[in-house]
């Protein structure tokens, strides 16, 4: 309860020492064996899926198509999923690995009281650790983004258009935001659970829940809450609508939708499209970047809002925590 509730404010800025913490965290992450293993994993994924995508693209012989570069991220060749799909799977793991022992690790190593007896607030430690993890993730993802672009340049032999660069950069940003959600979640658990292993397991359990079980639960819930009794169109619509809404509580769904809209310019809606809504549309014609961004705006803000919410919960839990172990 280091946060004084008295009317008079605290002395000095809560961010004193923030950048010292960020620098230390990034240095720790980038040299840790844990990160190096994950980096190798992601680089292999990038090269593997990029190469598979290249084969797929040149195999199809359809080189007239627009947005070849974006296809690098999205086209897949059995049995490998596409790179974007892989990231949706791997980024949470990396994020959890970066943050699951952020706070309880300090307590277990008995460094917490020593660090907090320096002239900094707990705010700086917590935010510093969060930013350190986010920047590390951003650095790794940016390197991989460049790698995929490099593979593309070599393999396709033509430079990406401005539109493609903009879209893939937005995809990079969305991936970082998605990672931020998992970092905030792992960090919340690291303030709640005293054991790092428990925090890691809890984070992985949540990840598994959303990755494997959420969709099943959503279909069950949609079928029972909004059953199709008479086969009317309205019933089908209501059920699908409910299913979509529930499904969007999962960060995985939000990320998948954001990815789809950003990397497939032809996608013009993430919800239901009724035939009359397509009247006058040129099917298959790509949307401009701005319109795609507008399309995924709710998904992006949703992910960021969830991240902030989790961070705030972690903040409250950390501020309330007694320093003595």
């Amino acid at each position: 309860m280091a946060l004084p509730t008295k009317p008079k404010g605290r002395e000095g800025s809560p961010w004193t020492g923030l950048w010292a913490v960020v620098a230390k965290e990034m240095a720790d992450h980038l040299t840790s064996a844990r990160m190096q293993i994950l980096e190798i994993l992601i680089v292999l994924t990038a090269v593997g899926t990029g190469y598979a995508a290249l084969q797929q693209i040149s195999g199809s012989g359809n080189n007239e198509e627009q947005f070849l570069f974006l296809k690098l991220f999205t086209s897949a060749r059995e049995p490998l999923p596409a790179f974007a799909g892989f990231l949706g799977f791997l980024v949470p793991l990396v994020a959890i690995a970066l943050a699951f022992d952020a706070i309880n690790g300090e307590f277990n190593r008995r460094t917490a009281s020593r660090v907090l007896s320096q002239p900094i607030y707990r705010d700086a430690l917590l935010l510093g650790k969060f930013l350190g993890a986010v920047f590390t993730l951003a650095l790794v993802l940016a390197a991989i983004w460049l790698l995929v672009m490099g593979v593309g340049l070599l393999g396709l032999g033509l430079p990406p258009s401005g539109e493609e660069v903009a879209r893939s950069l937005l995809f990079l940003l969305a991936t970082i935001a998605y990672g931020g959600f998992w970092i905030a979640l792992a960090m919340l658990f690291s303030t709640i659970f005293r054991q790092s292993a428990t925090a890691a397991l809890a984070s992985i359990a949540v990840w598994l829940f959303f990755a494997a079980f959420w969709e099943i639960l959503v279909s069950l819930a949609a079928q029972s809450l909004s059953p199709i009794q008479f086969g009317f169109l309205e019933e089908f619509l209501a059920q699908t609508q409910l299913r979509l809404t529930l499904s969007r509580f999962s960060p995985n769904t939000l990320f998948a939708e954001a990815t789809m809209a950003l990397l497939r310019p032809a996608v013009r809606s993430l919800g239901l499209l009724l035939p009359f809504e397509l009247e006058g549309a040129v099917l298959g014609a790509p949307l401009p970047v701005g319109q795609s961004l507008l399309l995924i705006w709710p998904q992006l803000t949703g992910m960021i809002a969830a991240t902030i919410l989790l961070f705030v919960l972690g903040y409250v839990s950390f501020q309330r925590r007694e320093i003595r172990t």
Partner: protein
Amino acid sequence: MGNLIIETKNLTKKYGDFVAVDSLNLKVHQGEIFGMLGPNGSGKTTTILMLLGLTEPTSGEVQVLGFDPSRQPLSVKSRAGYIPDQVGFYDELTARENLMYIAKLNGLPRSEAYKRIDEAFERVGLSQVADQRVGTYSRGMRQRLAVADVLIKKPELIIMDEPTLGLDPELAHEFLKLSRELADSGITILLSSHLLYQVQEVCDRVGLFHRGRMVLEGTVNKLAQDVLGAGYVVRIQANGSQAGFTETLKQIPGVANVEFKTPDTYLLKATKDLRTEAARAVINAGGQLKSLDLETPSLDDIYNAYFSEVNHGITHETKRA
């Protein structure tokens, strides 16, 4: 006496119904070593955390170096160093990197940080191993590193929680000598311990903690007089009498109490040094005197005497209730 460095008024900390620190009035002056002594769970660590603003007092006032730790924690923490019990370091970093992080958290410019870190290593005698990973350090080295760690902020006050815990007697002695040197250079030191015999040689004043209260306070000699009722303890080893010497010794004028410790060993408590009289009494009684020592009052004795009184008091009360 120098300036007041620490002052608390009716400082109280409650965890729910449990009172961890109860109306503590503590005064520590500049340049002295004050020992907070007491069993585990007597409120020492909680007091320390409140002094540093790491936990909020439930009521009462605290002033550390002229600042209120809960309102101006940064001012307090940039001037006061804290060595927690079982201090931890980042094992995978070198000692220098560990200190560099602390220097950065204190907002020291890089060149100043390098200078102070070198000085601190020099002072605690770790210059040779400064670039080794802390994981390779022994317990004694870690404890010295902890001192270096607080020295880089050039503290006016150092607070140590159980600093000698887990050190062997020689290392503990060495560590306390280092503390004495620091105090002599003008740094005020507040340390807590339950290893009384170790800290009594180094503390200028001590406070005895019991169930959240500071029940006794003063120099070790003053406490001995207050609690043991007598300032001098003579240990006598003698044999040659069937009946023992207890009665003989008790008859010496000025003896407060005679305790039969082990066969042939007696503890004589008195208000003055009665060695000559005791020796004469033993020899006159036909005994053989084997040894005769004046014991300095030990904090352990004071402590045991005090708490056996307190516990008796409690058992009487419960019986009456």
